[in-house]
């Protein structure tokens, strides 16, 4: 969790925005995940979000659904992902957060999960189907060790947002669109205003915007109104095509570099 705090603090002093990149752990396999994380970091990603594959990813669009399925077919489990994080930790201090649906965590046992994740070097958890009211126990167990990163949506009223922010750690994940994950040609036109409004309520908690962001232009536009942007499906699509081959890593790196440049131009 400390790594997340330090990263945002450092970027703030540099006047830069954070680039958060998502890939599905175990796609195409877990060894590849270690290499792909290295590629992302070298290309300029500040925080890595690893998706834990789930059989029923109901907040995800077709791209990440397919990646989940590929990872599950390769026998990826939460236990193995935590072991992989441990390996990645021996190579880099980049903040790592797991994005996972609730059932794998619940089934693992929350107490056990927090202990194992912290020991492996996981910095935070994003659980898209665990709203404020249901996350109390996880937050209590994770306190000060593991950031339970909250999500807010365009449909979240301000009063509720304030409560979400107060309970949140790490950063606030603002879902830019009313919908599921996946690349989009256009983002809502009122997004900049929404982000400005959310930023005021978020206060000290860094504001990260995700869902639908795939191009450098979108990164620049959104980055101007947030502390961080999150890109997922656009990267997962590259992995879907090329796996972790040299060509794939090259293309992935180029994509991240382009996003990085756009974000640094904000």
């Amino acid at each position, binding site marked *: 969790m400390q790594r997340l705090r330090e990263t945002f603090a450092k970027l703030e002093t540099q006047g830069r925005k954070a680039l958060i990149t998502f890939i599905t752990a175990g796609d195409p396999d877990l060894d590849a995940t270690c290499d792909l994380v290295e590629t992302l970091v070298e290309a300029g990603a500040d925080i890595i979000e690893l998706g834990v594959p*789930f*059989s*029923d*990813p*109901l*907040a995800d*669009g077709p791209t990440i*659904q397919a990646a989940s399925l590929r990872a*599950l077919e390769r026998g990826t*489990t*939460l*236990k193995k992902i935590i072991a992989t994080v441990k390996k990645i930790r021996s190579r880099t201090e980049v903040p790592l957060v797991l994005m996972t*649906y*609730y*059932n*794998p*965590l*619940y*089934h*693992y046992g929350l107490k056990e999960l927090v202990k194992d994740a912290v020991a492996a070097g996981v910095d935070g958890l994003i659980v*898209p*189907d*665990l*709203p*404020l*009211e*249901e996350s109390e126990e996880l937050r209590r167990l994770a306190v000060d060790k593991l950031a339970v990163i909250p*999500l*807010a*949506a*365009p*449909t*979240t*009223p301000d009063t*509720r947002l304030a409560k*979400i922010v107060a309970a949140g750690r790490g950063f606030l994940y603002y*879902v830019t669109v*009313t*919908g*599921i994950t996946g690349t989009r040609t256009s983002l809502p036109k009122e997004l900049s205003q929404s982000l400005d409004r959310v930023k005021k309520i978020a206060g000290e908690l860094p504001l990260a915007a995700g869902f639908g962001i795939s191009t450098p232009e979108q990164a620049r536009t959104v980055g101007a109104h947030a502390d961080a942007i999150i890109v997922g499906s656009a990267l997962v699509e590259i992995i879907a095509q090329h796996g972790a081959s040299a060509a794939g890593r090259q293309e992935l790196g180029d994509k991240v570099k382009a996003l990085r440049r756009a974000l640094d131009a904000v």
Partner: protein
Amino acid sequence: MIVPNERGYFGDYGGRFVPETLIGALDELTKAFEFYRHDQAFQDELKEWLTNYCGRPTALYRAKRLALELGIKEIYLKREDLAHTGAHKINNTMGQALLARRMGKKRLIAETGAGQHGVATATAAALFGLECEIYMGEKDIERQAMNVYRMDLLGAKVIPVTSGSRTLKDATNEAIRDWVTNVGHTHYIIGSVVGPHPYPLIVRDLQRVIGIEAKAQILEQSGALPDYVFACVGGGSNAIGIFHPFLEDDLKMVGVEAAGSGLESGAHSAPLCVGEPGVLHGSLSYLLQTEDGQIKEAHSISAGLDYPGVGPEHSYLRDQGRVEYISVTDDQALAALRLLCRTEGIIPALESAHALAGVVAQAERLKEQCVLINLSGRGDKDVATLAALEDKGGK
């Protein structure tokens, strides 16, 4: 204890495990439901539709020949198969469509397994002039072709779901994704007592009419309450509907899950018998899942029971010991279906045949008892499945 509590928990089960995007819509729905639940004009209108359009109350029929055949003292069938569209599902969709109309929603979506809920939703949409899209697994579209055609006739669009097991579970995922995207103008009519709060409560409330009627009818016809109530359990809406008004009474209740090819085969739909608690489709309840917390694919010959989860109130009633949950295999259900056809001239749905098969399996202990069975739907939709089995020379 009154269940659910204000957060939608039935003891340890239930809740709201959904993306933040939907919380506002669920709050809005809870508020509307709490209001109209006590609004006389709304209740009068619903009753009017249920009476003159759906054909309620449905009959309670004493099945003497079936009882004689099984050596059971008395068997009564609550004839939900006689409700408009052929199953209890219409009770829920009429109520929710009226609610959606009051809330100003112009579009209805639903998931469906056997197609009965899809047909019932399409019916309400046609009646009230609402746009309607139904998510249905590809596998279910194949085995329930007649219902697909009915939905089409009724003006609904059936969207095939090709992900995962291509059955009810995946259709539900897709319906939730649609709702997350179109939540502003769309109402999602969940077909069973599953999903995030307030759905398990809303659907229970709308299905209680089954048990309320059955209780009055059996008192009138036999002068006493039954000793046992049997119902099949997939998501569990027909079971909750008939059980709930009897919960405080001195009688036994049995929910019958689908054991598919047998519990030991792993190919079944019996989370209450052999599952573990977990979260699927917005609530915490018993589930079929792997060691890693992935949802397992369910199996049942009955598309309406082919689901790895179950409504949270059933999980609560199971843990309380108030309802006993058992399971019967595909073969047992098929045999019971044929038995009812030949003894009583009623073709039950494959789902409802599981409730009958539960009674057949326990006939020994029911000898001196009066048994009420919820015959939740009619079997016309299943004749193609049955004919295909005959062609294979089996069963």
